């Protein structure tokens, strides 16, 4: 092996014009919060509460399982403090002697300085999100290593290889990839203990994945299809098998029709789908669409067998730049779940819901931005209604300051947890030089929980965040974040 490495080093081409780009994003937070704690009391000790139901002598409402010698209740737990630090590094290397060859790595390190295990996501402390070698030419791109593919079926992470071939002139592209899969929504294998915090059933081996996609992109539209199968190598049974298709049509300037759907071949039902008509002009941006949502569960859980039902929704949103300095926005959605075939007279459950939001953003001067919004949503499980406002001062300089506040009323459907929350805070950003940015944020949650018993705990808390972003590269252009990113509209004003 040593000889092989030595030979490779001796025969390697000179590293002329080697380039690199490194972006490190570190975020430190100081937080404190109070959770719930399950407790019990002997049946013999309970008393009749103010509402006529069973309660502890000190006023907590309790639930008494039939026939059990004790009753259960949740009381406020202790305040837990955390000081998590999370750093993410993105590294790209190229100019390695072969044109088109580059190395990419993204890793995340997380640590809770208090050691109190109060903050999620700090285990394992080091995660490799991406780490692959790429060869890319005008006609083909090949990658090997840990990578994430994003498509209609979600973000698919795996350790393996992929190949994309394309015909740029005709806008055609096809990909094939496969390897050992990662869990959904995280860069960890499904066997990781970090994915099993409540001791659920867990697969013993990683799934093998095979995916392929094909697409066409033209000036008038795009069409893309994806297929993905995941197989448990221990049993050779499917973990999932899905196909998805997405299309975009741009019939005229400013107009677009977008749509897509996915089908679960393993479960034999349609997953999520949507169709939207969009209009994006200088003054008015609007969209009107319908969508359907059904969650997807891998087959090595039993959740898919519980028949999750989809909901169907219609939605619309409009944004109007009434004056050059003022933008108004509104959005709304109404949805209804399909019949769950599990209704009972014992429990009345909401089957439909709606969401709405109104807002305005004004920039009376180039450095000042005022934003205000009102949202209201009601549906199964929970509802909320709230207002929010922010003021941002961002002069033509290296810094910006935002002060924001909000109020929120958030009742739950299945638990007495109506509460009013007031939130206020500030964010500050400074860029002392290109490629270096510091951010400081502090927010106060002040909550008034309205419960008819002592369980109306105080969830109020402060959260303080300090963030630093460093981007360096091998020449001066690389010191910048991509302008595309800098142009991305920020804040809720643009959403």
């Amino acid at each position, binding site marked *: 092996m040593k000889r092989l490495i030595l030979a490779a080093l001796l025969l390697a081409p000179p590293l002329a014009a080697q380039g690199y*780009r490194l972006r490190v994003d570190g*975020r430190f937070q100081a937080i404190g*919060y109070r959770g719930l704690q*399950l407790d019990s009391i002997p049946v013999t000790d309970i008393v009749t509460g103010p509402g006529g139901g069973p309660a502890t002598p000190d006023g907590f409402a309790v639930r008494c399982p039939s026939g059990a010698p004790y009753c259960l*209740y949740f009381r406020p737990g202790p305040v837990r403090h955390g000081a998590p630090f999370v750093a993410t590094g*993105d590294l790209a290397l190229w100019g390695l002697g072969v044109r088109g060859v580059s190395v990419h790595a993204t890793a*995340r390190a997380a640590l809770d300085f208090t050691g109190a295990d*109060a*903050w*999620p*996501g700090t285990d394992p402390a080091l995660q490799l999100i991406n780490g692959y070698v790429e060869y890319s030419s005008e006609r083909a791109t090949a990658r090997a290593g840990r990578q994430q593919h*994003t498509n209609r079926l979600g973000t698919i992470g795996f350790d393996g290889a992929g190949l994309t071939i*394309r015909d740029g002139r005709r806008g055609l592209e096809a990909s094939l990839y496969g390897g050992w899969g990662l869990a959904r*929504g995280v860069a960890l294998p499904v066997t990781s203990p970090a*994915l099993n915090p*409540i001791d*659920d*059933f867990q697969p013993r081996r990683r799934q093998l994945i095979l995916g392929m996609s094909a697409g066409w*992109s033209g000036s008038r539209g*795009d069409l*893309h299809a994806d297929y993905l199968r995941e197989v448990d190598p221990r*049993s050779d049974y*499917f973990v999932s098998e899905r196909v998805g298709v997405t299309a*975009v049509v*741009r019939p005229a300037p400013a107009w677009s029709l*977008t749509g897509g759907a996915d089908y679960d071949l*393993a*479960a*034999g039902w349609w997953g999520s789908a949507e169709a939207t008509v*969009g209009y*994006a002009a200088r003054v008015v*941006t609007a969209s009107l669409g319908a969508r359907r*949502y059904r969650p997807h569960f891998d*087959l090595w859980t039993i959740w898919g*067998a*519980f*028949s*999750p*039902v989809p909901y169907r929704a219609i939605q619309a949103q409009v944004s109007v730049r009434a004056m050059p300095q003022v933008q108004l926005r509104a959005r709304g959605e109404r*949805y209804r*779940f399909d019949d769950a075939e599990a209704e*009972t007279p*014992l*429990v009345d*459950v909401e089957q439909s819901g709606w969401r709405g939001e109104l807002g305005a953003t004004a920039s009376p001067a180039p450095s000042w931005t005022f934003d205000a919004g009102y949202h209201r*949503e009601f549906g*199964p*499980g*929970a509802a909320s209604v709230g207002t929010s406002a922010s003021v941002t001062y961002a002069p033509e300089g290296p810094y910006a300051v935002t002060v924001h506040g909000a109020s*929120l009323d*958030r009742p739950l459907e299945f638990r007495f947890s109506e509460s009013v929350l007031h*939130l206020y805070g500030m964010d500050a950003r400074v860029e002392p030089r290109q490629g270096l940015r510091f951010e400081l944020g502090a927010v106060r949650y002040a909550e008034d929980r309205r419960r008819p018993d002592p369980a109306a705990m105080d969830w109020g808390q402060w959260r303080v965040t300090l963030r630093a972003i460093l981007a360096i590269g091998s020449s*001066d*252009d690389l010191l910048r974040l*991509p*302008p*595309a990113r800098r142009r991305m*509209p920020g804040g809720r004003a*643009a*959403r």
Partner: protein
Amino acid sequence: MIAVASLAIVVLLQVRAQGFDHLQHKALFPICASCHPGAARKGEALWPEPTSCAACHDGTIEKTVVWRPRTIARRTNLRFDHVQHATAAKDKPALCAGCHTELGEPRMAVRGTVVQRCLDCHGVRVAHLAAPDSACGTCHVPLVRAAALTRGDVARFRAPPSHANPNFLSRSGHGAVSRETMGASCATCHAREFCYQCHAGTAPPRAVAWLSSDPRSTAIAARAAPASHGDNFADRHGTEAAASSTRCAGCHIRADCLECHRPNAASGAGYHPDGFLARHPAAAYAREASCSDCHNVGAFCTTCHTRAGLVAGGVLRSGYHDTRQFFLAGHGQAARQGLESCVSCHAERDCLTCHSALGGRRFNPHGPGFDPGRLRRKNFEMCTVCHGAAVPQR
């Protein structure tokens, strides 16, 4: 009166800007090369010596003037050579006036180069910046060879009208142009670093490699967003990104996406609005968005709920869902509607207490759309969790 005065001032300034008033001296100098020998003969000076002016402007015959010939080469990206032009066009009359006067003006109404005259002579019948892409190299050297130009000079380059086309940023716009004329035309104003401002996410297109490297090229900022990026594009970008993520990767790197779509628990507000932590139950119960595209239920939702005391803890407890007295008995509809929310607090064994055929109470959990035959074929093991080896055939 004011207008006349203003006009006079403008004319005066223009004359002063010309320095030497050629027209006033037209009778003295019938041949341009008598003062500018370098325009016709190699090795000669292009500018006259100050002493030649002083022959008349001695303070007696004419007032004295101050004239110093240019000693520093003009900062330019022109590939023009006076002698070559003089040789090539020796048979054409009024050679110098052909470039340094407007059409129809007298020979000595000299001004700086009249670009349109160059274009006329070279057969380009449109305005300067609208010239065909193949024409730039006729008069201009690539930026990397225009060593005298400063970043400020580069920043003042005017963009051709073609660049204002909404489609120009697309693959069929500048992409197609660059494949044809990158070396000959684009290189006049741009170098590789300019392209890297946007082509940062993946290996740059091959055409970029045809350009040389020149950091001055970033003096021109690539600021325009594609036409598709209208207001509230953040809301609409999902479907387009899913349709062709490689198009996004032309400008965006992964970190751009992670500014909002951060798959870790320690992130602040980004994709979600301020205070979303507090209002997430309403959005999560009836999935305003597909949470699991970015968040793993086990690593994200359940670990946080565990720390907040919001999990069943291995054994199904009574008491949390306290607004419905018989919630445990009638939870089916709520579960099928919000199963993703249920599993953020409950483990599978919580449900198997009642729903398993192996030691449970045999409550059938299968509902609308359940296809036992298909699931049996696809993953028989899943069936055995509840049914053991005795999985029903239908």
